């Protein structure tokens, strides 16, 4: 029996049978975690940390390192340090980079000015006690769930030059006056943005619907009793009360416009007026035209741009908590 007592363990961590400890220390031991709790806690912290390390930090650091090297991406070895040459390619040599940045900015403004407010409008309308509200919500949310391939087909039906819905409505289908929605680089970005808004609005709507449900109804009642009209209730009371949701929406809108990629990619592979920074990353990193170093440099540039909204969000979140 005496062999059970492990020799190596210090008395403090061993709930010994002696029972001679002063009460104060006993209380201290009660507050400390039991070994089982400690193990559970360690595992619960370690697993997400590990996942985070392997899936987020490792690739991020690898991208940053690789952006200073030449590598064929196939064999380990053959790394060649090239300094800032890959960044020179990104900023000075690639003719697609600056148009891509511009398109990303246009994308952001469009979503911020049209897409997100549209989602908010849908949420406010569908939050009213109208019949079939759930059905409308589902309908507006469907685009968010559709696969990219399907979205490509749907918008092809709208935009096709010879037999698309839009050109048919305009009466120009099949004629030389038909608008080349996907091919004309003056209009294809806007065509893509309409398609993106169609998705984005549904996403924002769901988030705001949840936000609206979280607003205390007594606030509205109080405002109504004070004689505020519907518009005043919304803009002066409900909207400010949704501040946490608003921050998330701002961040999501920025992130969405930075990682916008799928729609332009299905349209024409993100060329000819539809260049986006994220698409350039994909083009140089995963396509057949893979050039790891240059692709990594594009990725790092995108990362640095993305850090701005992320830092904004995190600082907002933490400062609120401190308050």
């Amino acid at each position, binding site marked *: 029996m005496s062999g059970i007592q492990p020799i190596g363990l210090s008395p403090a961590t061993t709930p010994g049978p002696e029972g001679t400890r002063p009460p104060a220390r006993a209380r201290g031991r009660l507050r400390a975690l039991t070994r089982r709790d400690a193990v559970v806690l360690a595992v619960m912290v370690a697993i997400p940390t590990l996942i985070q390390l392997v899936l987020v930090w490792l690739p991020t650091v690898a991208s940053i390192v690789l952006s200073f090297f*030449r590598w*064929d*991406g*196939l*064999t380990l070895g053959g790394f060649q340090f090239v300094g800032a*040459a890959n960044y020179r*390619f990104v900023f000075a*040599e*690639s*003719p*697609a980079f600056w148009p891509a940045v511009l398109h990303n900015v246009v994308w952001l403004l469009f979503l911020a000015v049209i897409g997100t407010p549209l989602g908010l409008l849908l949420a406010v309308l569908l939050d009213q006690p109208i019949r079939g509200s759930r059905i409308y919500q589902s309908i507006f949310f469907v685009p968010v769930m559709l696969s990219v391939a399907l979205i490509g087909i749907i918008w092809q039906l709208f935009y096709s*030059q*010879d037999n698309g819905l839009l050109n048919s409505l305009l009466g120009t289908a099949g004629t030389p006056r*038909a608008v*080349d*929605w*996907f*091919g*004309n*680089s003056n209009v294809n970005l806007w065509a893509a943005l309409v398609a993106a808004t169609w998705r984005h609005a549904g996403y924002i709507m769901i988030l705001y619907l949840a936000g609206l449900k979280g607003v205390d109804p007594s606030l509205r009642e109080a405002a109504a009793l004070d004689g505020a009209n519907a518009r005043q209730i919304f803009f002066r009371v409900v909207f400010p009360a949704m501040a946490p949701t608003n921050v998330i929406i701002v961040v999501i809108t920025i992130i969405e416009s930075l990682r916008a990629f799928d729609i332009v990619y299905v349209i*024409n*592979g993100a*060329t*000819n007026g539809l*260049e986006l920074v994220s698409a350039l990353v994909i*083009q*140089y990193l*995963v*396509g*057949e*035209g*893979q*050039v*790891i*170093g*240059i692709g990594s440099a594009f990725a790092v540039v995108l990362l640095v741009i993305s850090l701005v909204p992320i830092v904004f969000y995190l600082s907002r979140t933490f400062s609120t908590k401190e308050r």
Partner: protein
Amino acid sequence: MAAHPGGFELNRRSLIRGAGIGAVGLAGTQLLAACSGGSSGGGGAGGGGSATFGSNASDEVPKKAYAAFVSAFEKKSKDTIQTKTSDHNGFQEKISNYLQGSPDDAFTWFAGYRMRYYAKKGLVGDVSDVWSKIGSNYSDALKQASTGDDGKQYFVPNYNYPWGFFYRKSFWQSKGWEVPGTFDELVALAKKMKTAGIIPIAFADKDGWPAMGTFDYLNMRINGYQFHVDLCAHKEAWNSSKVQEVFDTWKELRTYQDPSALGLTWQEAAQKLGNKQAGMYLLGSFVTQQFTDKAVLDDIDFFPFPEVKVEGTDSVEAPIDGLMLSKKGAQNQAAKDMLAYLGTGEGQLAYWKVDSSNIMTAKDADTSGYSAFNKKLGDVIANAKHISQFFDRDALPAMASNVMIPALQNFTKSGSIDLANLETQAKSLYANQ
């Protein structure tokens, strides 16, 4: 024999695969069959083996054609082939990851830089022993096109197809148009067509690659085959007066190409040729796959890209499609037998009977089924002194897809090209390989 360790590898794999689906009995027979295949030194008569086949033939006609080839092979060899078809462009773009991941034993691919590059990187299987059996069935040019930088063969050609101008005979006859022999005649003809209110040259470049065909031909006709190949390999500079002349000449032609090209796929442009909205179409002979109406198909004729500056038209763009083995597939006798079968006239005929827009490459292929049109295409290739593979197969993939596609699309749109920038980008990209 070297095949033995490979044979063991196969046994273990098939055993694991067999056990995985819970068919232990089947695994046993596979084991035996593979043993006999291995010990006969790859005689091809083993039978009962199995292999996977990754196909990029996602268009309807080639898909059916490969299915016909595979079933003909299965019938002959008693091997089982599992075909996995991927989207044509998608397969191409994912090839690096595909070959590094868990590729199929055999897969569809192209001759040219794209084949040699992956061979050099050791990602594909050596098929020199297959070539020792089928080599006599191919011309030297085809063997050369199947050979990697190390002198070993990595590729078995199935078919090739010439690029050139396609047009509707009856339409031209009714209008009194004649096949142009020189560039000036081509421009004069295009002018006539434009006045007649039709699009002289059908053109589609939404996917980016079709415009490369115009570039390749103009470059070969103006600067010659050797310059073109050297430019593709970046042994020649882009910012030269020679390349400038190509684009200057193209500018003349550009006004006669379909102005809505950037919104069109090649299939849509082919429809314009089919229904007489366009007079001619510079594309590969696969364009005929689009004409399902027999009357239209029989009405299609072909003429080579006319002479521009270099005398004659004996440089032909005729990309070769065929099969390769992954590293794993090089250990699989069934996969090797399938490639060997593709090197026979019989195997190629099984494919060609379904997809007859191409030209069979095996010498002993039975060409009695060729129409006058097929014969014409075949003769163009047979009489060619030089065969190019298409820009995106002759050049570095990153140069082709990341630089040339946007540059040519921009040229299509605006008529201007920044050759100095092309050269700068080319320098950076070729240095990265």
